[in-house]
């Protein structure tokens, strides 16, 4: 089986029950993606599959053969952080850091969803082509990522600072 991880094609063989999360962390040596609840409730394991955010804990690796997966390791490098990573530092978007890789991947995909006009539950006019990334929209759209330190205000500030102009 083949899967593309952060631009590199990787061969793997695994029990069909192996989650994409366990494949990344235990088989491929990429521990940046975190295991929080392991049941789709916390979002710490969020990665991008062909650019769309998913919970790697609920994804069976075999179902993602041929997909291009992006993890936090592929988002930026130590010597070249993603603009959102720099904004998280600037705006205190984390304390313990455990939810951060998931928050980063989730927010990057979220900005794409807003840019292409995908509504959210709080979007008033469902027929609108574009919607602002205002206070309520941002919080609704990021509700699949929990932060037990409660760094939400910093996380929201970092996301607005990075994507606010593009999506407003």
């Amino acid at each position: 089986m083949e899967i593309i991880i952060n631009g590199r094609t990787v061969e793997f063989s695994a029990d069909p029950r192996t989650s994409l999360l366990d494949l990344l962390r235990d088989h491929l040596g990429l521990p940046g993606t975190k295991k929080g609840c392991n049941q789709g409730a916390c979002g710490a394991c969020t990665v991008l599959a062909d650019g769309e955010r998913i919970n790697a804990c609920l994804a069976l690796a075999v179902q993602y053969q041929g997909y291009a997966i992006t993890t936090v390791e592929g988002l930026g490098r130590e010597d070249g952080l993603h603009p959102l990573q720099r904004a998280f530092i600037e705006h205190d978007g984390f304390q313990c850091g455990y939810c951060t890789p998931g928050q980063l991947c989730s927010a990057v995909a979220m900005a794409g969803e807003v840019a292409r006009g995908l509504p959210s539950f709080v979007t008033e006019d469902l027929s609108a082509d574009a919607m602002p990334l205002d206070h309520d929209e941002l919080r609704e759209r990021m509700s699949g990522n929990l932060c037990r330190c409660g760094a939400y205000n910093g996380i929201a500030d970092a996301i607005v600072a990075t994507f606010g102009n593009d999506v407003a």
Partner: protein
Amino acid sequence: MRPVTYARASSVPDAIRLAETTSGARYLGGGTNLVDLMRETVEQPEALVDVTALSTDIEATRGGGLVIGAAAKNTALAGNRTVRERYPVLARAVLAGGSAQIRNMATVGGNILQRTRCTYFYDDAARCNKRVPGAGCDAIDGFNRMHAILGGSSACVATHPSDMCVALVALDAIVHTDGPAGSRSMPLADLHRLPGKRPDIETELTPSELITAVELPPLPFAARSTYRKVRDRASYAFALVSVAAALDVTDGTVRDVRLALGGVAPKPWRAWKAEEALRGQPATGASFDAAAGAELADAAGLRDNGFKIELARRTITAVLAGLAGEQA
């Protein structure tokens, strides 16, 4: 650990053949529920037949309705232009369910067939008639704040967790299936069973029968429809009570209405009695309240969930009043 095989179906006949010829096979969609249930050992399939390669199309029908492929992702359904404009109740219900990550994974077919989130169903140290037929039910006298006030039985009071299905059942959705005995169609309202004495049998589907598509008949007044969800936090939580409604008011009179409830019953609950009570009545708060009362006359609370009866009454009334106000 028992072995599990995996195969990706290339077509509907291929999927049915794989399921029929492999013992202990289960169809696999996005996996957001089945993978979790397997990890908890509630589900123990011997073979997974991946049906995510089947139709994801969302297409208008000649008669003005819509056909939705069972493998369409929840995100694609909520983002679809026709759904947003002609069936806003459906877009909003889908967007009320799960998180963005879950909606990107979950399919329409899987959403329909997802299983209850009753904590006793998940807990293998608890008694559950749905998990182990005849074992008993620890929810009925246990922590049952999330449980059913309508349609439950002495064997099971678990609720169906879907938001999407509540909108679909309000919109008279038809489920298309295919299986070893051929293809057939049935109203979604008839797909899920009430628990009775056999809560382990949740739908009318026969072994290896596969949901291939969901069809929405044309319903022009559904352009004015909405979904309201009451839950313990503002986002990403299952419903305590939810209401899907479409209302057609002409000259102050309710000409037609579609109403369904979530979070209160073992299946997506079409509020037939309330609809019947409302047609031809003045579009006033008093009528809406009377209709809600008619639907909830048979509702019964357990130890922790009696509040849902009044909550459902108020939510129904508020949603209908909101829709009526829009048309004033």
